[in-house]
């Protein structure tokens, strides 16, 4: 047991996976000697050698495509895309190949790859470095989309993703890479995938978030608790496949729902959650669902980015409005 940051927990899980399973290999841009631009792979090449941890040329299509080839051969490729803003060239291989190889061959070949990428805003990064486009991936049949919200979650979910027999897009909220420290037990225990975690009980409203937004949600919840308003906070650790049961069960009790994500609103994953409620939770809803999200604009360069991202105040305000319905 030791205290660590989220990015350290990622590193620990990678090291554990490399140690446990000889088929695990890690590659991407600058993941070798440099240890990744965020140090997620720090020290791994030194420890496990350049045959297990290596740099690729600067070519994202290739990184995804070669991962498909390697995974089909039974390796467990864990590839890094340096920033989510550069992940779009991988979609062709993820959608047309990785997510379909098992299906196309009736299980003869499979594609147990993990594509990791830091995502999200809030660190005053340059243009194209603050993306939150998880919804694009959550629409692709055959994929899993997993997002940790804390160091312990990062460790357990990443291990699960690597061990999962199917392709996983694993998005790491870089804004909280070093924001919090948490006890993480390096015992090799994976967390369940396809699961929404309840991180705070409450009976007045259901509040869903993922990644860096979970902290925003929790802060808002704690703030409202001082006034006696109890929000149930759910950590959507796996967006796809989505754990509808936990959502519906919570909203059945609270009757209200607020969803927080930093991605643009239209077609964001919050839409799917709200849609599930419109379909299956309508009779339990006491108030309109609220989405507190990024705007449908290009995320502005960093001088204005804080105005783009959902704030605690905005979440608090949305919850209050939701509670106004009698």
């Amino acid at each position, binding site marked *: 047991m030791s205290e660590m940051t989220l990015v350290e927990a990622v590193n620990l899980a990678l090291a554990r996976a490399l140690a446990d399973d000889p088929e695990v290999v890690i590659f991407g841009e600058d993941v070798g000697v440099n240890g990744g631009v965020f140090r997620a792979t720090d020290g791994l090449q030194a420890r496990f050698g350049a045959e297990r941890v290596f740099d690729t040329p600067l070519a994202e299509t290739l990184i995804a495509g070669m991962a498909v*080839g390697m995974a*089909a051969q039974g390796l467990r490729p864990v590839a890094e895309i340096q920033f989510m803003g550069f992940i779009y060239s991988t979609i062709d*291989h993820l959608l047309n190949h990785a997510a379909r190889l098992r299906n196309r*061959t*009736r299980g003869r*070949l499979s594609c147990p790859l993990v594509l990791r990428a830091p995502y999200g805003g809030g660190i005053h990064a340059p243009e194209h470095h603050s993306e939150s486009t998880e919804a694009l991936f959550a629409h692709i049949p055959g994929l899993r989309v997993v997002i940790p919200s804390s160091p312990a979650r990062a460790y357990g979910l990443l291990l699960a993703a690597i061990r999962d027999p199917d392709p996983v897009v694993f998005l790491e909220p870089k804004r909280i890479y070093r924001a919090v420290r948490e006890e993480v037990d390096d015992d090799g225990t994976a967390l369940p995938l396809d699961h929404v975690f309840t991180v705070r009980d409450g009976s007045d409203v259901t509040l869903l978030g993922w990644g860096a937004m979970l902290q925003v949600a929790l802060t808002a919840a704690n703030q409202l608790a001082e006034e006696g308003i109890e929000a149930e906070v759910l950590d959507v650790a796996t967006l796809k496949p989505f754990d509808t049961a936990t959502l519906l069960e919570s909203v059945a009790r609270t009757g209200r729902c607020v969803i927080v994500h930093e991605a643009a609103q239209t077609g964001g994953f919050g839409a799917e959650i709200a849609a599930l409620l419109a379909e299956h939770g309508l009779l339990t809803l006491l108030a309109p669902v609220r989405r507190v999200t990024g705007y449908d604009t290009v995320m502005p360069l960093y001088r204005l980015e804080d105005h783009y991202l959902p704030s605690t105040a905005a979440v608090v305000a949305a919850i209050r409005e939701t509670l106004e319905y009698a």
Partner: protein
Amino acid sequence: MDDHDVGGDSARLRYLDHEGAIVKPLPGALANRDLLIRLYRAMTLTRTFDAKIIALQRTGQIGTYASTLGQEAIGVGLGSAMRREDLLLPAYRDTAAQLLRGVTLCEQLLYWGGDERGSDFAGPREDFPICVPVGSQYCHAVGVATAFQLRHQPRVAVVTGGDGSTSKGDFYEALNLAGAWRLPVVFVINNNGWAISVPLERQSGTTTLADKAKAGGFPGVRVDGNDVIAVHAVVGEALDRARAGDGPTLVEALSYRLGDHTTADDAGRYRDPDEVSRHWAEDPLVRLRNYLVTGHGWRKDDEESLLEECSATIEAAVAEYQAIPPAAPEAMFEHLYETLPLALVAQRDDLARRLRR
């Protein structure tokens, strides 16, 4: 590769001329009657099968199909040069190569007949299924080759594609990696002159596609893709190099697409019929047959019994194919993930309910 006259624009390795006369002495291993007859049989089976699929397509018994007419020597040449433990990553015009790899006729019919079970090859279990998105296969191939290299296995990935596919970024990204890491991979380009309606000169900044290998820093060689002996030889040499750890090779096999792009295409819209006629003179089957007749005593009745045998094999496969009932619709949920996630159970049940109605 010192005995090839490669490099110049029209230079390409060739053993047999259009009439089937020897223009270059065959290397010992290739002057083998059994091997040559095996290659000829495979080309003949491919062509007969190809014609049958088109006939089935015309009568609505199979979907869109990409004929290999006139290009049989490429697939037969590379497929016969590969070892069983090598791995093929085919494009969609590789009926011949897949046949040689052991993908059954029935499996191929199933695939083109719109059934995923056609890609569940009983034979080459590790070969990739057909790649329809042009160019993707090159990236997969270098991934496979990386796995071979990391595991120190003496295996080679062979990946095929057309002239048009060399314009995709995937192709170059893969070439560059293959060159940088000296991967055990052979790129075989079927340069049949056309990418649907786009001729090579509109497609490529280079005159030869072998030149593309220069962007990866490794050898590119040109071969007469209608001379099955030459294709077999060149690919065999490339496989040896790769297996020995000497890195990748790009093989540009020059051929011609005698048919339409697919059964959904009408090449008459964009291609001069005279051009097509001229290329019939280069037919890879006629060429090898002539050589077998003059050099190896191949007789009219050998030919006839071969054709009969091909027909019988194909008819049996078609009957087998036609006897296979469609999969249950729920099959679409079966291999999506290893285990069906809970989130999808309701959808599968919905489908089952719809079916019962």
